[in-house]
Each structure stands twice: as structure tokens, then as C-alpha cells.
């Protein structure tokens, strides 16, 4: 992961003040409409098209425009690479940007494959940043294409965004992009990409999993010299948390480690194997189970002293139920319930929630209620923030 960051810094600093900066733009014109309209069955797309023909303006384009307006100070310094028509060409040209259309849309409707191809092509062309307007689906598609190789910022245009790669709004996205392209932001953070099974979602079943991580510029809200502001680097924060946890581990306990970069930093620091996106179990400083499902977990921990170390995943602050369902009600109860849970989270993670609590949705309402309340969240070395967990 570290090597990626370095090559990105080189790219950023190489494109100094004079060279034209290349950025990618992907707009998903029907982002979020699927879930919102409550599509059922195969004629779902027709409904969307009908709604659009009736004059319903695609939400995405408006949001894309707002974002691109905020980017205007860099008009002469950037070149936008994008896909035809609604996928970005229209809006970028409308605002006067220097635009290069780099591909075409296969088939009649815009598909996930178009997004992926677009992102891959943008990377190939040397884009140093990709901006997109869309939802979790678009996020996932971009991740499939580029992984951690290029930084990305999203304008949220879906219904409920679980992924954590979005700026809080279109203007914020533009601002962040401006700062990054001007070299005012150096740090990139890995943020969760959450994959929603849309089919199940339309049938009222939440199936969300942690899919991967995208690199997002970390807005440190830099103020030169003031008495304070800006955050500690995410990585340093995670390392501090890991040191604390490791110091307090004992040899009698089995430690279940949930998915995510914060929890897995613990295993990384111990220099043992781990699965970033899955659930692992540690015992006596050795990994005794890697990327386990519920059954495997229960097999290992039943009857043993167990602690569950988890971190909220995604932009909504879900502690349980979105991305780590392997840690099921049975697992939790077998471990001993609320008192067996250790929550770790970086300060920035918590602050991003702007006061909203962590959420649990284990599918067992009684357990959810039991789990809610105040926790001592480990936010650093010998530092704890009291934070609330609620069922949602």
C-alpha cells in the first residue's frame, strides 16, 4: 500500500505549476435511480427512461455541473478526459473545459462495463485524478478498474452511500480537487468501497460487503500557522491504535478481527498474514483463521475466551451489519455480547460522522438493542473517545 502512495506523490509533484493536469470525469447519469424508483423485474430500465422522457432531469448532471463550477479556477490548467454525452462530455464542454472524449459507450444503455473501461482508459492516459458522480455501484466499478493506482473523489448521487469515497457535496468535491491539483493536499487516504447487491436491495434485503479501498485525497483543511486545525495522518493514527491494542493483548484470548484498514493494521504491525476485506482470528500472536465465514469462526471460538475487534465501515458508520456480517449474532453472543466488543476507529473516521452515532444492524433486533450504548472507542495510543452505538 505504501508504494502506491509514493508513486502518486511523484506524479503529483511532477505535474508542477506549468504542465497541464489531466483529470478524468465519469458521470453516471442514472445514479441512484434504480434503487429509488424501486425497480422490480426486467422492465425497470424502461421506467427510468420513461421518467426521464417526461422531463425528469437526471440528478447527476446537475450535481456534476455544480462540482465542475467549483473547479473553474483551474480551467486553463486542466484537461478533462471523459466519456461521450451524458457520461461527462456534455457537461464538461458546456462549462468551457478542454475536453477529450476517450471512448465510446457500448450498447444502448450505459453499463458498468462502460464505467470500468472509462476508468481504465483514464488511468492509461495519465490522469492524476478521477472525479465521478454516482453511487456505490459506480464506486465499485471504478475500483474494479483502477484499484489504488489513481486517486478518486466522488460526488454523492446515490440514495444511501455506504462507500466512504464521497465528498460531502458537489462543491466540496470540486474544492478538494482544486486543493489536490494545486499541491495543497499531499495525503491520500484509503477509503472503503462498499458493494451492495442491488438485486437483493430491491427486495428489501441488505447485503453489503466491504469490497475494497480507493485512494481519496485527505482534506486536512490546512491553515498556515494558526493555533491549530488539521488532522493527524490517518496512517499514524492507525498505527497508534495498533500499538495500544497489541500492548493490551493477552495469551488466553482469541481475537476476532473485522475487516478494514484500521483493524488490519494491528495484524500488519505484528507482521502476520491478514485478509483486508475479511474476518481473521488471532491467538497467541498467530493467525489461526484467515478470511473466515460465520461457521468457521464459531468452530474456532466456541467455548473460548474471545474478544471482537471491529471498526465502523463505510461512510455511514455501520459497526456491524454492513461489510462484516460474518460476525453474526451467534458469533457475538458466543463471545460474550457487548463486553467482548472492542471498537477501534481513527479520529477522522469519527469526525466524518459529524456527531452521528455508530450503527449496528445484525438482523437480530434484540441483540442490536443490547449492543447499543456508550463505548470506549480506541482512537489512539492510550486515548479513548466515548462514542455512542445505536441500532439502525
Amino acid at each position: 500500500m505504501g508504494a502506491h502512495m509514493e508513486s502518486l506523490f511523484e506524479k503529483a509533484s511532477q505535474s508542477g505549476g506549468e504542465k497541464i493536469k489531466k483529470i478524468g470525469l465519469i458521470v453516471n447519469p442514472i445514479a441512484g435511480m434504480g434503487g429509488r424508483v424501486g425497480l422490480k423485474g426486467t422492465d425497470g430500465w424502461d421506467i427510468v427512461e420513461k421518467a426521464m422522457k417526461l422531463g425528469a432531469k437526471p440528478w447527476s448532471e446537475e450535481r456534476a455541473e455544480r462540482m465542475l463550477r467549483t473547479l473553474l479556477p483551474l480551467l486553463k490548467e486542466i484537461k478533462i478526459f471523459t466519456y461521450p454525452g451524458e457520461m461527462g462530455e456534455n457537461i464538461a464542454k458546456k462549462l468551457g473545459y478542454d475536453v477529450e472524449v476517450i471512448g465510446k459507450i457500448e450498447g444502448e444503455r450505459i453499463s458498468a462495463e462502460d464505467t470500468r473501461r472509462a476508468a481504465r482508459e483514464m488511468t492509461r492516459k495519465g490522469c492524476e485524478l478521477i472525479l465521478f458522480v454516482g453511487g456505490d455501484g459506480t464506486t465499485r466499478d471504478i475500483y474494479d478498474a483502477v484499484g489504488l493506482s489513481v486517486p478518486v473523489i466522488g460526488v454523492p448521487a446515490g440514495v444511501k452511500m455506504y462507500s466512504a469515497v464521497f465528498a460531502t457535496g458537489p462543491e466540496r468535491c470540486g474544492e478538494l480537487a482544486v486543493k489536490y491539483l494545486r499541491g495543497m493536499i499531499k495525503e491520500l487516504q484509503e477509503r472503503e468501497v462498499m458493494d451492495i447487491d442491488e438485486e437483493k436491495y430491491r427486495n428489501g434485503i441488505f447485503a453489503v460487503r466491504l469490497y475494497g479501498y480507493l485512494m481519496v485525497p485527505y482534506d486536512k483543511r490546512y491553515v498556515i500557522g494558526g493555533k491549530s486545525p488539521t488532522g493527524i495522518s490517518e496512517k499514524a493514527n492507525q498505527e497508534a491504535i495498533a500499538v495500544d491494542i497489541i500492548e493490551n493483548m493477552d495469551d488466553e484470548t482469541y481475537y476476532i478481527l473485522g475487516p478494514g484498514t484500521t483493524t488490519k493494521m494491528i495484524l500488519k504491525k505484528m507482521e502476520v498474514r491478514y485478509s483486508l476485506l475479511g474476518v481473521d482470528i488471532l491467538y497467541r500472536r498467530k493467525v489461526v483463521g484467515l478470511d473466515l465465514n460465520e461457521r468457521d469462526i464459531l468452530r474456532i471460538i466456541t467455548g473460548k475466551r474471545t474478544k471482537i475487534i471491529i471498526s465502523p465501515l463505510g461512510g455511514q458508520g455501520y459497526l456491524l451489519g454492513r461489510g462484516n456480517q460474518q460476525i453474526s449474532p451467534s458469533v457475538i453472543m458466543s463471545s460474550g455480547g457487548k463486553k467482548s466488543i472492542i471498537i477501534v476507529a481513527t479520529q477522522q473516521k469519527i469526525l466524518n460522522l459529524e456527531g452521528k452515532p455508530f450503527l449496528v444492524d445484525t438482523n437480530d433486533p434484540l441483540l442490536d438493542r443490547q449492543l447499543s450504548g456508550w463505548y470506549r472507542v480506541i482512537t489512539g495510543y492510550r486515548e479513548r473517545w466515548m462514542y455512542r452505538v445505536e441500532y439502525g
Partner: protein
Amino acid sequence: MGIVKLRKNFHQSKWDEPIIFELSTENERGIHVPPVERDIEESSGNLETLIPESIRRKQPPSLPEVAQLRVLRHYIRLSQEVLGVDVNIDIGQGTCTMKYSPKINEVLVRSRKVTEIHPLQPEDTVQGALEIIYNLDHILREISGFSRFVFQPGGGSQALYTMASIVYRYHQVKGNTHKDEIITTLLSHPSDAATAKVKGFKVIDIPPDQETGLPDMDAFREAISERTAGMIICNPEDTEIFNPHIKEMTSIIHEVGGICAYDQANANGLLGIVRSIDLGFDLGFYNLHKTFSSPHGCGGPGLGAVGVIKELESFLPIPVVDYDESGKKYYLNFDLPNTIGKVREFYGSFPVILRAYAWVRVLGEEGLREVAKVSIINNNYVMKKILNEVKGASISFPKTEYRVSQVRYSFKKLADEAGVTVEDVIRRITDFGFHLWTSHHPWIVPEPFTIEPTESYSKDDLDEYVEGLKTITQEAYENPERVKNAPFNSVIHKIQDMSFFEDPEKWAPTWRVYLRKHRNQEVRK
């Protein structure tokens, strides 16, 4: 009433002053050192016998050579490029308490009877100094209700460190090895947590209730355990919402055998109105360079005066100043059995002590109460004006209507609606001869800015400042680019390349490093 005039034509002094090294001219001398008399010269013989070659400096330091007037002019020009309280309506530096530092106090501290006395002189020869320290100690006891004050810490953070050390030593003496946790709040000063950690404590932060802005009491109760050694908090916190539950909090801490330390950085609105001891605190400190008017000096000298209840007196850093009734003189008492030792050499910044003392002697009880009263009135007046007239500004935790002596606002609305952030406003406001400051980390309030009027500014002054904010936000909605490209009339223009401060390959913390990395030069041949 006077006039309220926003300085639209203000232009700060901009001297484009070179770095002092660039003024260096070979052979110029700034000052001469007293020469050694002939007899001494003759008796000393060869310098080699006094300082052998092996430890003698071979190359003189590459300091600049500048004639006297040029040095003077250089620094006077730099001083003109600074906005101190003497020069501007400094209410925008919230939490810093930028109040008037009376000039008479400067006259007093420049007296030779202050500048030329040595701390290790026989006590008989410094009775004046000891008397003043003793008297200020007693004054602060009255104001706070604590039993004894020391003045050793050189600032608020060092005072916090002193208090953390006392808490640590207290439990050490009591054998409470299990007590290793300190409770503080997210809206207290970051040093509250930092200093506790220096002394080995684990820190538990209590977040604010999202509606009231007060520390969440449920979270607080959950955080308490038998491991709780104590609590170090501000009240009011930086949001200046006075915590009505404070006594409950201190009681809870006491019940588990912990002690309560009071970060009184925000004391300006409480003088004479609230006594620390009544709130249940066992120790606390005042910032003499804020609340008690000693000037800030670009960042010091400061002084955090630490006071404790009787039971904790033996833990204070030594020495304290006592009065010997029989001998009728003041003396330094080093005999504190459980002392934490020292946090700083000698007894504290005497000039700062003197200024604080003189300030209180002019005000007296009534004057101190007036200070608090006017701070509160000024603050709430400014708050109403800002909320009514400054577009895009909102208050943090609006559920609480009034605050003590400062307010933390938010420009989130401005940012969302006009795309102009608080940092843009900060830069633009310098074009009118003002400062504006955001907030301590962490930024719990988005796009924060903090205004603390204190008691030192008149209604017109306050109106002028608000007029400035109003003008800028209006401009933000109509012509955001202008705000974003500010400042125009300040001393320098924008720095855009932040890598100068973050990239180890580029950063230049001194002139020599700058020359080496960016000009491929040395300071001097």
C-alpha cells in the same frame, strides 16, 4: 457615540524587508562589547592556555554583519508588519483573550528594580519582589477559593502539565497504582489530553452532546471507573457554554477517589462571578497572559498560575513564597514534602506576575466583576449582531442561546451556499486590519471561527468588526472569487505550494537550509 468606520482603504505596512542575512555587509558592526582592560589582557596570556585548540571555535559563526541603525530599522519595519492588540480590534483571536495590556504595567516592569535582580540573591535583598509574588498569590486565592498558588509554569500548557504531575504524584503517594485514567472532553484544550499522557495517563475523551454542546453526561458516567485518577477540563469549554452539571461531574469523580483539575483558560467572564472551589475543583490554573492582562508577546512570555486546595499544597513545585511573622519578612519555602520538584527553573516570570498584580490593584473587586460583566455583555451583543447581520454565519450548538465570553461560530452555511470557506474569510479579513481565527483541533464544529470580545473594546469597536464580517460574507455571495483570492492589502500574498512545509526535501526551517535547498548557496563563504 463615536463613529464606526470599516477601514476599506486599509493597507498594511508592506516593507518587502529582506531577511537579516541579506543585509549583511562585511565589516559593519552593530555594537561593541566592553573591551578587556590592559591589566586583565596582560595577565591572561595566551588564549590557548585558557581555551585549548581542541574546544575552541575554529570558524566564527556566519552571523550577519549589520550596522546599528540598519538593525534597528529592520526590526522596526518587521514590527510594523504585525497586528497586535495595540494596533487592531483583536476580537477575532478567540480563546486568546486579546485584551488591553495597560502601558503603565510596562513602565513598572522596565524598572531596574525588576530587570536587574537575580533570583538567587539573598532573600533580604529582594523583599519587594517576594512581596509582590506573595500578594498576587493571595489575590488569586480570593478569586478562586484555592489555598495556595505557584507561578512557576511558563504558560497554560505547562500549568496543565504541572497539574497532571500533581495528580500523578498524589496517587503515587496514596498507593493508587491502579488509577491510570484521566477524563477530559473533546472541546477542552488539546493540551489537557496531551499533558496527561506525558505523565503516563490514559485519556478518555467525552464528546459533546450534539444538541447542547455540553459534555455528554451519559458518556461521562460510562467513562468513570475505579481506574479514574481524575478529570482535567475546561469550563466553560471553548464553546463557552457554561456547564450547569459541573458540580455533578466533580462529585462523581470524587466518589471514585479521583481529583478534579480546572483548566481556567476561559476565566475572563467568570471573575468574581464563579469561584473554582465552589464548583468542586481541587486544583486549577489561570493564564496571567490572557485573563490577567499580561501581553502575549508573539507567543510568550506566558504564565499559568496553578492553585490548589489545602490537601494538595505539599505537592506543589518548589519553592513557594511565605511570610515569616516573627522576622517580618518574606522568604522562599522549599519544604513541601510531596513536591513534584520543578517544571521550570526559579520561581516564574516575575514581570508577568507584576503586571497581573498591578492590573488587579487598579480594578479591585468591583473592577474585576466589571471585567466579567462587560466581557459577557460584549460577547452576547456581538453574537446577536453576527447572527442577525452576517450572512452565512451560524452558531455552534444553537440550542443554547447565550454564552459566557466567547462564541464558536460556523461558516458552514457560507461554505455550502457560496463555496467560500472560513480560511478564505480569514485571508480577506486581513484587508480590513483584522484577525480571525478558527478553532483548536479537532474541528468538531465545521468551518469554525471563534470571536472573543473581552472587556477591552468599545461598542463602536465591536460594531466595526462585525461590519467587516458582514461586508465579507456579502461579498462572498456576490463575488466569491474576490474573497477566495484575498488578501490584497495585507503584508504578503498567498503561499500556494504547501510542500514547502511538509516535504522534507523542500522544507526550509532556517535561512541556511533555504539557501542550500533552493538557491544552492551557503550562508557565507
